[in-house]
């Protein structure tokens, strides 16, 4: 039965057997879903190994630094395949997100060679890259001797490839021809609406189409539901409060964080349009946000939706995805909708968070570590994660076309595919890449907190913010 199962899986991977046939014949052989998945995954790994010398670094020990995340869980579940295919051993340290990036900064800034590769966000590479802590991966991707011919780098969504590449010039366009590929996109999230369908039905409202509608709908939900609040967005004093819903809406109004003239940056948060956008955003939180909004991170935003404490969130789509499963109170009640904040915009323009893999410059076995990275970001592993685990959102176009993956999502997460497919073409990083990203964006969040607390009027707050940002840019030699 074992041999027959393997042969069947191999035939499926060679596309000699259809999915329906695979399921039928597997059940005739008495194979369960788990066993069939195992054989298919093994056959895919073997197929992957056919055209490339994966055993080149046999016996090497790699060490990874990972964040506790479903992406890491999916990789760990599939790791034995990598080990058997390459003969390498892989160990890892895994930390919760609260302390993860401190650990990365400590490891890299001390020049430690302990970790060969690690998980990162694209924004972090704007610090790690110029500091010389991580490798430009273009050299690896374009080297046929080091990269599997079936790797298919172009299959990775173009917005994500560009968003993880920067030439290191403050204000330089992401993905420009001279950009360095600082990391490989692994999984990503874009920002849209996730909402509680039962609550929307009860209040007799539909998912809002734009920000003025969102302000109204949230207020009605807060008033009519008598308990849950209308809209969940992040508010903690951190750059992470700016990048999800807030910046997605901001960019949809055509607004930027900076203007770049002759290589010099200037704050652009205090334009007339930006002030109007901030007014709406602040009003929405004051009227219909959580009472302790200024302490809200992604965690509170997500769990409130899952627990039925909020009716809607404008945040990462995968947050809504995870709140629709597990043992969440509102499991099965969450719906999804694309969202273009600007009433005159033709499509959503969500800012994205991209969990990526980066290669440490201090690693003593960079080529071997690159083998791991290309396996972990391969079509095969991406497919495994998307079909069998919670590896959403996958970064490869081919995986988004996979029928099994789409079928699984469509069945349990109604509206999720639609929101993604509508938004993905406009999804990318809308921040201006520059080294003071974390300082200045945190200050932006701080100003937003002051506006919501009515400590400063929106108009005045944004002028003060822009003046302070310009001064810091000038002090750092980046401003005019």
């Amino acid at each position, binding site marked *: 039965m074992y041999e027959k199962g393997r042969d069947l899986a191999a035939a499926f991977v060679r596309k000699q057997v259809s999915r329906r046939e695979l399921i039928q014949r597997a059940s005739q052989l008495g194979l369960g879903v788990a066993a069939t998945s195992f054989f298919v995954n093994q056959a895919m790994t073997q197929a992957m190994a056919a055209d490339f010398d994966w055993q080149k670094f046999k016996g090497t020990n790699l060490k990874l630094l990972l964040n506790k995340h479903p992406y890491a869980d999916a990789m760990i579940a599939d790791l034995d395949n990598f080990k058997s295919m390459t003969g390498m051993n892989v160990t890892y340290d895994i930390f919760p997100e609260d302390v993860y*990036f*401190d650990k990365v*900064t400590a490891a890299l*800034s001390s020049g430690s060679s302990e970790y060969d590769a690690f998980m990162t966000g694209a924004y972090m590479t*704007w*610090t*790690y890259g*110029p*500091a*010389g802590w991580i490798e430009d991966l273009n050299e690896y991707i374009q080297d046929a001797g080091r990269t599997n011919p079936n790797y298919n780098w172009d299959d990775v969504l173009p917005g994500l490839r560009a968003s993880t590449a920067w030439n290191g010039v403050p204000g330089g366009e992401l993905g420009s021809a001279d950009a360095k590929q600082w990391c490989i996109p692994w999984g990503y999230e874009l920002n849209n609406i996730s909402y509680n369908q039962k609550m929307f039905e009860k209040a007799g409202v539909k998912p809002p189409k734009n920000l003025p509608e969102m302000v109204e709908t949230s207020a009605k939900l807060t008033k009519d539901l008598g308990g849950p609040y209308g809209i969940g967005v992040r508010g*903690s*004093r*951190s*750059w992470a409060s700016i990048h999800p819903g807030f910046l997605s809406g901001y960019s949809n109004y055509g607004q930027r964080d900076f203007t770049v003239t002759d290589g010099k940056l200037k704050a652009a948060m205090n334009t007339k349009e930006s002030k109007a956008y901030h007014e709406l955003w602040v009003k929405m939180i004051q009227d219909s946000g*959580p*009472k*302790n*909004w*200024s*302490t809200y991170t992604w965690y509170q935003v997500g769990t*409130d939706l899952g627990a039925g*404490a909020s009716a809607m969130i404008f945040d990462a789509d995968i947050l809504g995805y995870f709140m629709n499963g597990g043992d969440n109170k509102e499991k099965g009640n969450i719906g999804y909708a694309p969202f273009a904040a600007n009433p005159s915009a033709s499509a959503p323009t969500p800012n994205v968070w991209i969990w990526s893999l980066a290669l440490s410059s201090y690693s003593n076995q960079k080529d071997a570590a690159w083998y791991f990275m290309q396996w972990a970001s391969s079509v095969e592993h991406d497919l495994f994660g998307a079909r069998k685990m919670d590896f959403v959102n996958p970064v490869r176009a081919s995986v988004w076309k996979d029928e099994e993956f789409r079928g699984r999502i469509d069945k349990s997460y109604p509206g999720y595919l639609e929101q993604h497919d509508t938004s993905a073409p406009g999804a990318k990083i809308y921040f201006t890449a520059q*080294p*003071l990203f*974390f*300082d200045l964006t*945190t200050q932006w969040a*701080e*100003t937003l*907190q*002051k506006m919501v*607390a009515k*400590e400063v009027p929106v108009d005045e707050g944004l002028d003060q913010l822009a003046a302070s940002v310009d001064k810091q840019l000038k002090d*750092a*030699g980046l401003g005019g």
Partner: protein
Amino acid sequence: MALTDSVRSGMTTATPHAQTATRRPGRHRLTRRALPYLLSLPALLVCIGILIPFFTAVYYSMMRFRLNLPMMKGFIWFDNYISFLSDAAFWNTMSISLLYAFVTVTGELILGLGIALLLVRPTRINNAVSIMLLLPLMTAPALAALMWKLMTNPNFGILSYLVGLLGFTDFRWASDPSTALLTVVLVDVWVYTPFIMILLLAGLRSLPKQPFEAAALDGVPRSFVFFRITLPMLMPYIITASLFRLLDSIQQFDIVYSMTQGGPGDTLMVFQVQSYLEFFQYTNVGRSAALLIVLWAITYALSNLFIKHWLKLRERAHGPA
């Protein structure tokens, strides 16, 4: 018998050593001279271990040093410190840190002293209660902060519910700039009052009984006894407890960071939180180090002040040393 034997054998083994020493007096003298240095060597090594990071921080504080702008790295002497003078954010950090330290230590002293006075008689119940009251001190401050964050949650927190019953239906605790300081101070007071209480309780129980007995015989009012006898005699303990707490509160990090990350706005941006953000998030090593050196200077000045006062009190009580 056995003892006699061992003493005898000890004497016999000691004899050759004594002979060698008489034979080589120069070497013996050298060992004797080196002994004090050898004995103090571990302390010296520990001292060096402490001073190296300190002087490294001083050195970094005089540099323009951002990890992500390596081209700009350079020695700038006191520019980081000079820039603080005109930086409103720095002065905000300074005033918040001092205010936080003052309010928490005052609150903890008053409460700690009050509880210690209530528990001063060493009865079984009092001893059991004093042990139970130590429980918050055994909670990690970051965990205590998370616990309070849940208790003050406006949706389901027990404290929000209780203040709601008192008519404060929209009390936003750490989320509101006007009540954020109060909220983190409450957590600090909850965690650290037992520390003050246990020190003062030990002090109270060790005070001589005669002055109190004499006052009781003379029918001196209780308030007079407290302000003129108990408090002055307890002062060295109060100063010691306050010094420990003051040094700790001015360096507060975990409670404030866990509850608000220094917000809302910059309401709770104390030194340690600002310095942590400067290094770990903004990778601005120079500014982060300069902030910590300023904090060290404040701490050093305050501890000197307290210790001098404490020595004066001791001198008054026991005469000059």
